[in-house]
């Protein structure tokens, strides 16, 4: 029980910091921070799939698209309140993930990466084609739709009055923290061990009686559900989706983010999410050229593999240990 004490305390501290942060953040920064939360949710999902069961997905943007479009369509065409669309998006995306996970069982490593890459590249084209459903190139506009909480009037929560961006911030981060805990609980127990067994050696896992099919498809489903929630929140935050909202770059950046945050460990997901959200801005400091973010992403991706294979999650334990010794005294 004592071993839990430190992580729980840290998590608590983090939660408090998150709750208080908007007091210090401008409106725009609150919005940026909301996106960090959204990416964090997607990264948790992708980490479960790639980091824990070793199945590479270069197509998670597509699952975000499923979630985002579910939300958009339900809100605009069926008058569903935005908050209710989130769990529905989770289920729809999760089902899509599970259904893909079934044939994906027959694809190993490289070929799975290839298939998911092809899905990511084709997603915008498919979305554009089925116009009647998706709104095609012009997409679906959520701005001003009355089902959007905080879209027209400020939101009242627990006696506080929040404008749209602050509301968004709390929505995304509440979900992020809750989903983090859910994932953490899932990965601590038997499921997590089974996942890791699948990743490390399929033959060994099988001979220990771990059902590969069950856990691999389950991981796909969970991971897709997380991405779906992230996509749903993304649609709400951007108040707009169209065929180009979820391009292949998104899928690639998610993979970058999960590598930066550290595969196989949830600790660094926030670092990865911050990385995805803010790198384009930092890159602009380096050079105004539009190509700069790509170059920096590429260099960092390769650099992380070579220099820091465990990502941010690898750095954190070391840092935490140092902080802990400071507190314990000499």
């Amino acid at each position, binding site marked *: 029980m004592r071993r839990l004490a430190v992580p729980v305390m840290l998590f608590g501290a983090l939660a408090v910091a998150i709750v208080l942060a908007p007091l210090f953040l401008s409106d725009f920064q609150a919005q940026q921070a909301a996106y960090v939360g959204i990416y964090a949710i997607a990264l948790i999902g992708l980490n479960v799939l*790639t980091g824990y069961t*070793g199945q*590479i997905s*270069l197509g998670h943007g597509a699952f975000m698209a499923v979630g985002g479009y579910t939300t958009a369509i339900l809100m605009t065409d069926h008058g569903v309140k935005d908050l209710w669309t989130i769990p529905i998006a989770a289920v729809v995306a999760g089902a899509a993930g599970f259904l893909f996970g079934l*044939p994906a069982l*027959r*694809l*190993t*490593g*490289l*070929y799975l*990466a*290839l*298939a998911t*890459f*092809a*899905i990511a*590249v*084709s997603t915008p*084209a*498919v979305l*554009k*084609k089925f116009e009647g459903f998706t709104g095609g190139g012009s997409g679906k506009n959520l701005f001003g739709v009355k089902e959007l909480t905080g879209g027209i009037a400020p939101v009242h929560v627990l006696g506080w009055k929040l404008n749209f961006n602050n509301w968004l911030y709390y929505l995304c981060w509440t979900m992020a923290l809750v989903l983090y805990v859910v994932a953490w609980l899932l990965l601590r127990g038997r499921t997590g061990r089974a996942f890791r067994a699948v990743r490390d050696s*399929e*033959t060994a896992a*099988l001979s220990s009686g771990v059902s*590969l099919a069950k856990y691999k498809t389950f991981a796909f489903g969970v991971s897709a559900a997380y991405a779906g929630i992230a996509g749903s929140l993304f649609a709400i935050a951007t108040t707009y989706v169209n065929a180009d909202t979820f391009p*292949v770059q998104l899928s*690639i950046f998610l*993979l*970058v983010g999960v*590598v930066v945050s550290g*595969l196989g460990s949830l600790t660094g997901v926030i670092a990865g999410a911050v990385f995805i959200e803010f790198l384009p801005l930092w890159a602009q400091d380096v*050079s105004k*050229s*539009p*190509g*700069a*973010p*790509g*170059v*920096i*992403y*590429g*260099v*960092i*991706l*390769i650099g992380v*593999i*070579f220099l820091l*294979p465990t990502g941010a999650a690898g750095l954190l334990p070391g840092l935490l240990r140092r902080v802990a010794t400071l507190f314990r005294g000499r």
Partner: protein
Amino acid sequence: MANFFQQVVSGLASGGIYGALALALVLIHRATGVINFAQGEMATFSTYILWTLTQNHGWPYWPALAFTLAVSFAGGFGVHQVVVRPVERGSVLRVVIVTIGLLLLLNGAMTWIWSGEVRSVHSPFPTRTIDVGGVAISIQDLGTIGVSIGVVILLGLFFRFTKVGLALRAAATNPAEARLVGVRVPLMLGVGWGLATMLGAIAGALTAPTVFLDPNMMQAVLIYAFAAAVLGGIDSPVGAVVGGLLLGVALNLLGTYIDFVGADLRLPAALAVILAVLLFRPAGLFGQRVVRRV
């Protein structure tokens, strides 16, 4: 009927390009077991070099192409030695991420260096059509088919009849035994990458005149090349080329005669090919079945 022949010919032409890039992918996969997600960007980069030599420095086409091929070879060799070699024997995920990183890096670099503006590239072939049995066939298409086939034949001869080609084949299939006879395997694999990059440059040079040059030019072609390689059998050079030609013709005919597919769903159609082959006949048309007992 005339339209049918035209579509077949132009399908063969685009198929030749897919086949060339697919051949590059197969070469690299056979030699180093890597699926190079950056193959398209490397090809585009080579094409930019060709473009800048002819446009900005006024080189005539063929010397510029020769120089581009040489630079591409060196570039591919260098990329393998520096970036790929340290990770090629490790986990699949590391290798995938490194090639993705390369993709991002090259794409960004091209935008940085040459900006994202769309450029036009001259074709080495005249743009008129000739009359073949009453059907107007574009010379550009015929030239593309000719170059693709010629390159494939040259490569085949290289592998069969030269010492380096033999050493490369040995290094790709039996690296440990190859080292015992004195083949410097890591070097040979680098040569393989160099050759593949040259193939990519040719594919890019053939693509650019028709679609115009921009950093994302080869992204779709890469997917078609993946589909062709998978269709032909990921380790079969012959399969890559045949797969490319088949795919090119099939996509063209599908697009012309089935309205639903049209021009919009070509990419998803290629995706469907990839998924179908991987799920139902992973070895492709010419590949060898690898039995994985679990």
